[in-house]
Protein backbone atom coordinates (compact mmCIF):
# COMPACT_ATOMS: atom_id res chain seq x y z
CA UNK A 1 0.00 0.00 0.00
CA UNK A 2 2.78 2.40 0.91
CA UNK A 3 4.55 2.03 -2.45
CA UNK A 4 1.33 2.24 -4.45
CA UNK A 5 -0.43 5.07 -2.64
CA UNK A 6 2.36 7.15 -1.17
CA UNK A 7 5.46 6.64 -3.32
CA UNK A 8 4.40 5.96 -6.91
CA UNK A 9 0.79 7.15 -6.51
CA UNK A 10 -0.90 4.75 -8.89
CA UNK A 11 -3.53 6.22 -11.17
CA UNK A 12 -6.16 3.72 -10.02
CA UNK A 13 -6.31 5.64 -6.70
CA UNK A 14 -7.12 2.37 -4.97
CA UNK A 15 -5.49 -0.93 -4.07
CA UNK A 16 -3.65 -2.82 -6.85
CA UNK A 17 -1.05 -5.59 -6.94
CA UNK A 18 1.36 -3.66 -9.17
CA UNK A 19 3.96 -3.12 -6.46
CA UNK A 20 3.42 -6.38 -4.59
CA UNK A 21 6.57 -8.14 -5.78
CA UNK A 22 8.63 -5.06 -4.87
CA UNK A 23 7.01 -5.02 -1.45
CA UNK A 24 7.73 -8.71 -0.92
CA UNK A 25 11.34 -8.10 -1.74
CA UNK A 26 11.59 -5.21 0.70
CA UNK A 27 9.71 -7.03 3.46
CA UNK A 28 11.93 -10.07 2.95
CA UNK A 29 15.08 -8.00 3.45
CA UNK A 30 16.07 -7.61 -0.19
CA UNK A 31 17.66 -4.39 -1.36
CA UNK A 32 17.16 -2.57 -4.59
CA UNK A 33 17.53 1.07 -5.66
CA UNK A 34 13.99 2.28 -4.97
CA UNK A 35 15.20 5.88 -5.29
CA UNK A 36 16.17 5.28 -8.89
CA UNK A 37 12.73 3.89 -9.65
CA UNK A 38 11.23 6.98 -8.05
CA UNK A 39 13.33 9.36 -10.17
CA UNK A 40 12.48 7.36 -13.29
CA UNK A 41 8.83 7.68 -12.40
CA UNK A 42 9.23 11.46 -11.94
CA UNK A 43 10.84 11.84 -15.38
CA UNK A 44 8.21 9.64 -16.97
CA UNK A 45 5.39 11.64 -15.41
CA UNK A 46 6.85 14.97 -16.54
CA UNK A 47 7.48 13.58 -20.01
CA UNK A 48 3.81 12.55 -20.30
CA UNK A 49 2.66 15.94 -19.02
CA UNK A 50 4.93 17.88 -21.40
CA UNK A 51 3.77 15.79 -24.33
CA UNK A 52 0.11 16.44 -23.55
CA UNK A 53 0.70 20.14 -23.02
CA UNK A 54 2.46 20.44 -26.36
CA UNK A 55 -0.56 18.86 -28.02
CA UNK A 56 -3.01 20.95 -26.00
CA UNK A 57 -4.62 17.83 -24.52
CA UNK A 58 -6.06 17.54 -20.99
CA UNK A 59 -3.51 16.10 -18.58
CA UNK A 60 -6.07 13.85 -16.87
CA UNK A 61 -5.13 11.62 -14.01
CA UNK A 62 -1.76 10.12 -14.93
CA UNK A 63 -0.91 9.04 -11.40
CA UNK A 64 2.75 9.45 -10.52
CA UNK A 65 4.82 11.07 -7.82
CA UNK A 66 3.62 14.67 -7.97
CA UNK A 67 4.41 14.86 -4.25
CA UNK A 68 8.12 14.51 -4.98
CA UNK A 69 8.08 17.22 -7.67
CA UNK A 70 6.11 19.43 -5.27
CA UNK A 71 8.69 18.90 -2.55
CA UNK A 72 11.63 19.39 -4.91
CA UNK A 73 10.21 22.62 -6.34
CA UNK A 74 9.45 23.92 -2.85
CA UNK A 75 13.00 23.23 -1.71
CA UNK A 76 14.58 24.77 -4.79
CA UNK A 77 12.37 27.83 -4.95
CA UNK A 78 11.58 28.60 -1.35
CA UNK A 79 13.77 31.69 -1.24
CA UNK A 80 12.41 33.23 -4.42
CA UNK A 81 8.79 32.38 -3.61
CA UNK A 82 9.05 33.20 0.08
CA UNK A 83 8.07 29.74 1.38
CA UNK A 84 8.90 28.85 4.93
CA UNK A 85 10.02 25.24 4.63
CA UNK A 86 9.76 24.67 8.35
CA UNK A 87 6.35 26.26 8.97
Amino acid sequence: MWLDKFVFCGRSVGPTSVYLSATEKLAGGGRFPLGRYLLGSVYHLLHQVAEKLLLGQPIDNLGGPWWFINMWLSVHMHKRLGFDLFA
Partner: protein
Amino acid sequence: MIPIDQPHFQCLGPLENPDPTDLINAEINRIPFRAGNFSLDLWKDTFRSWPSSTKGWKDWSLRIGDSNEIQWGERKLDQCIRLSIADMERNKSLLIAASYFWSDTFNAFVFGHGPASPTLADVLMLTGLEIATADDSHLFDSKPERKVETRNIGGWSGYIQKYRKNRTRWAKGTRHLSEHVAR
Protein backbone atom coordinates in the same frame (compact mmCIF):
# COMPACT_ATOMS: atom_id res chain seq x y z
CA MET B 1 24.83 16.94 -34.56
CA ILE B 2 24.90 19.44 -37.38
CA PRO B 3 22.41 22.31 -37.32
CA ILE B 4 20.66 22.80 -40.66
CA ASP B 5 18.52 25.57 -42.13
CA GLN B 6 15.24 24.13 -40.77
CA PRO B 7 14.84 25.75 -37.35
CA HIS B 8 13.64 22.69 -35.38
CA PHE B 9 15.64 19.91 -37.02
CA GLN B 10 19.18 18.68 -36.48
CA CYS B 11 21.17 16.21 -38.59
CA LEU B 12 23.27 13.42 -37.20
CA GLY B 13 26.78 13.56 -38.58
CA PRO B 14 30.41 14.15 -37.74
CA LEU B 15 30.82 16.78 -35.07
CA GLU B 16 32.40 19.87 -36.51
CA ASN B 17 31.06 22.60 -34.31
CA PRO B 18 31.33 21.72 -30.62
CA ASP B 19 29.19 24.71 -29.60
CA PRO B 20 25.84 23.26 -28.48
CA THR B 21 24.04 26.61 -28.35
CA ASP B 22 21.96 26.05 -31.49
CA LEU B 23 20.85 22.65 -30.30
CA ILE B 24 19.95 23.96 -26.85
CA ASN B 25 18.04 26.88 -28.33
CA ALA B 26 16.11 24.55 -30.63
CA GLU B 27 15.12 22.35 -27.67
CA ILE B 28 14.16 25.32 -25.52
CA ASN B 29 11.72 26.34 -28.23
CA ARG B 30 10.04 22.95 -27.84
CA ILE B 31 9.06 23.26 -24.19
CA PRO B 32 5.28 23.47 -23.50
CA PHE B 33 5.58 27.11 -22.42
CA ARG B 34 6.39 28.02 -26.03
CA ALA B 35 3.33 26.15 -27.30
CA GLY B 36 1.19 28.46 -25.19
CA ASN B 37 -1.65 26.06 -24.38
CA PHE B 38 -2.46 27.75 -21.10
CA SER B 39 -5.76 26.66 -19.65
CA LEU B 40 -6.61 25.44 -16.19
CA ASP B 41 -9.26 23.22 -17.80
CA LEU B 42 -6.43 20.95 -18.94
CA TRP B 43 -5.58 20.25 -15.30
CA LYS B 44 -8.99 19.33 -13.88
CA ASP B 45 -8.33 15.72 -12.96
CA THR B 46 -4.56 15.73 -12.76
CA PHE B 47 -3.90 15.51 -9.06
CA ARG B 48 -6.47 12.87 -8.17
CA SER B 49 -3.76 10.39 -7.21
CA TRP B 50 -2.13 12.79 -4.73
CA PRO B 51 -1.78 10.73 -1.55
CA SER B 52 -4.61 12.01 0.59
CA SER B 53 -4.92 11.05 4.21
CA THR B 54 -6.72 7.74 4.62
CA LYS B 55 -8.56 6.60 7.70
CA GLY B 56 -6.46 4.19 9.70
CA TRP B 57 -3.21 4.64 7.75
CA LYS B 58 -1.33 6.68 10.28
CA ASP B 59 -2.10 4.36 13.19
CA TRP B 60 -1.33 1.25 11.17
CA SER B 61 1.91 2.70 9.92
CA LEU B 62 3.03 3.85 13.35
CA ARG B 63 2.13 0.51 14.98
CA ILE B 64 4.05 -1.56 12.42
CA GLY B 65 6.82 1.03 12.52
CA ASP B 66 7.36 0.42 16.23
CA SER B 67 8.56 -3.10 15.55
CA ASN B 68 10.26 -2.41 12.22
CA GLU B 69 12.13 0.82 12.74
CA ILE B 70 15.55 -0.83 12.61
CA GLN B 71 14.79 -2.84 9.46
CA TRP B 72 13.33 0.22 7.74
CA GLY B 73 16.46 2.15 8.63
CA GLU B 74 18.68 -0.60 7.24
CA ARG B 75 16.69 -0.59 3.99
CA LYS B 76 16.73 3.21 3.85
CA LEU B 77 12.95 3.45 3.89
CA ASP B 78 12.42 5.19 7.23
CA GLN B 79 12.73 8.81 6.06
CA CYS B 80 10.36 8.27 3.14
CA ILE B 81 7.83 6.40 5.30
CA ARG B 82 7.83 9.34 7.72
CA LEU B 83 7.05 11.62 4.77
CA SER B 84 3.98 9.52 4.00
CA ILE B 85 2.48 10.17 7.42
CA ALA B 86 3.22 13.88 7.27
CA ASP B 87 0.49 15.99 5.70
CA MET B 88 2.44 17.56 2.89
CA GLU B 89 1.01 20.80 1.58
CA ARG B 90 0.16 20.60 -2.10
CA ASN B 91 1.04 23.59 -4.24
CA LYS B 92 -0.98 23.02 -7.40
CA SER B 93 -0.19 26.40 -8.94
CA LEU B 94 3.54 25.80 -8.62
CA LEU B 95 3.28 22.30 -10.10
CA ILE B 96 1.18 23.50 -13.03
CA ALA B 97 3.39 26.52 -13.74
CA ALA B 98 6.62 24.51 -13.54
CA SER B 99 5.30 21.77 -15.83
CA TYR B 100 5.20 24.22 -18.72
CA PHE B 101 8.98 24.57 -18.43
CA TRP B 102 9.84 20.86 -18.57
CA SER B 103 11.99 19.77 -21.49
CA ASP B 104 11.61 16.07 -22.10
CA THR B 105 14.81 16.13 -24.15
CA PHE B 106 16.95 17.54 -21.35
CA ASN B 107 14.92 15.93 -18.55
CA ALA B 108 15.09 19.32 -16.90
CA PHE B 109 13.02 22.41 -16.19
CA VAL B 110 14.29 25.17 -18.43
CA PHE B 111 13.79 28.25 -16.28
CA GLY B 112 14.91 31.79 -17.02
CA HIS B 113 17.95 31.41 -14.79
CA GLY B 114 18.97 28.12 -16.41
CA PRO B 115 18.09 24.43 -16.38
CA ALA B 116 17.22 22.65 -13.14
CA SER B 117 16.39 19.03 -12.70
CA PRO B 118 15.67 16.58 -9.90
CA THR B 119 18.67 14.27 -9.60
CA LEU B 120 19.50 11.08 -7.76
CA ALA B 121 21.29 13.20 -5.17
CA ASP B 122 18.01 15.10 -4.61
CA VAL B 123 16.13 11.82 -4.22
CA LEU B 124 18.65 10.72 -1.62
CA MET B 125 18.60 14.03 0.25
CA LEU B 126 14.82 14.43 0.27
CA THR B 127 13.61 10.87 0.71
CA GLY B 128 16.63 8.93 1.94
CA LEU B 129 15.76 6.10 -0.47
CA GLU B 130 18.39 3.70 -1.73
CA ILE B 131 20.05 4.82 -4.97
CA ALA B 132 23.39 3.04 -4.99
CA THR B 133 22.56 -0.68 -4.89
CA ALA B 134 22.93 -2.56 -8.15
CA ASP B 135 19.56 -3.34 -9.63
CA ASP B 136 19.35 -6.98 -10.58
CA SER B 137 15.79 -7.45 -9.40
CA HIS B 138 13.73 -7.05 -12.62
CA LEU B 139 11.26 -5.78 -10.13
CA PHE B 140 8.20 -5.18 -12.21
CA ASP B 141 8.65 -8.30 -14.32
CA SER B 142 8.55 -10.73 -11.42
CA LYS B 143 5.42 -12.37 -10.13
CA PRO B 144 4.45 -11.87 -6.48
CA GLU B 145 4.35 -14.94 -4.24
CA ARG B 146 1.40 -13.74 -2.20
CA LYS B 147 -2.04 -12.66 -3.21
CA VAL B 148 -3.55 -9.52 -1.81
CA GLU B 149 -7.20 -8.77 -2.33
CA THR B 150 -7.64 -5.45 -4.08
CA ARG B 151 -11.00 -5.55 -5.85
CA ASN B 152 -14.34 -4.60 -4.37
CA ILE B 153 -12.65 -4.01 -1.08
CA GLY B 154 -13.78 -0.43 -0.50
CA GLY B 155 -10.72 1.47 -1.62
CA TRP B 156 -7.73 2.08 0.60
CA SER B 157 -9.80 2.41 3.78
CA GLY B 158 -11.37 -0.99 3.17
CA TYR B 159 -7.97 -2.46 2.40
CA ILE B 160 -6.58 -1.21 5.70
CA GLN B 161 -9.60 -2.55 7.57
CA LYS B 162 -9.25 -5.97 5.99
CA TYR B 163 -5.54 -6.44 6.50
CA ARG B 164 -5.49 -5.02 9.97
CA LYS B 165 -8.39 -7.18 11.11
CA ASN B 166 -7.04 -10.36 9.60
CA ARG B 167 -3.62 -10.09 11.08
CA THR B 168 -4.50 -12.30 14.02
CA ARG B 169 -5.80 -15.05 11.73
CA TRP B 170 -2.52 -15.53 9.89
CA ALA B 171 -0.35 -18.40 11.02
CA LYS B 172 2.20 -17.58 13.66
CA GLY B 173 5.51 -16.69 12.06
CA THR B 174 4.07 -15.63 8.73
CA ARG B 175 1.55 -13.27 10.31
CA HIS B 176 3.94 -10.40 10.77
CA LEU B 177 5.51 -10.67 7.32
CA SER B 178 2.12 -10.88 5.63
CA GLU B 179 0.85 -7.77 7.34
CA HIS B 180 4.11 -6.05 6.56
CA VAL B 181 3.78 -6.95 2.87
CA ALA B 182 0.19 -5.75 2.73
CA ARG B 183 1.18 -2.50 4.32
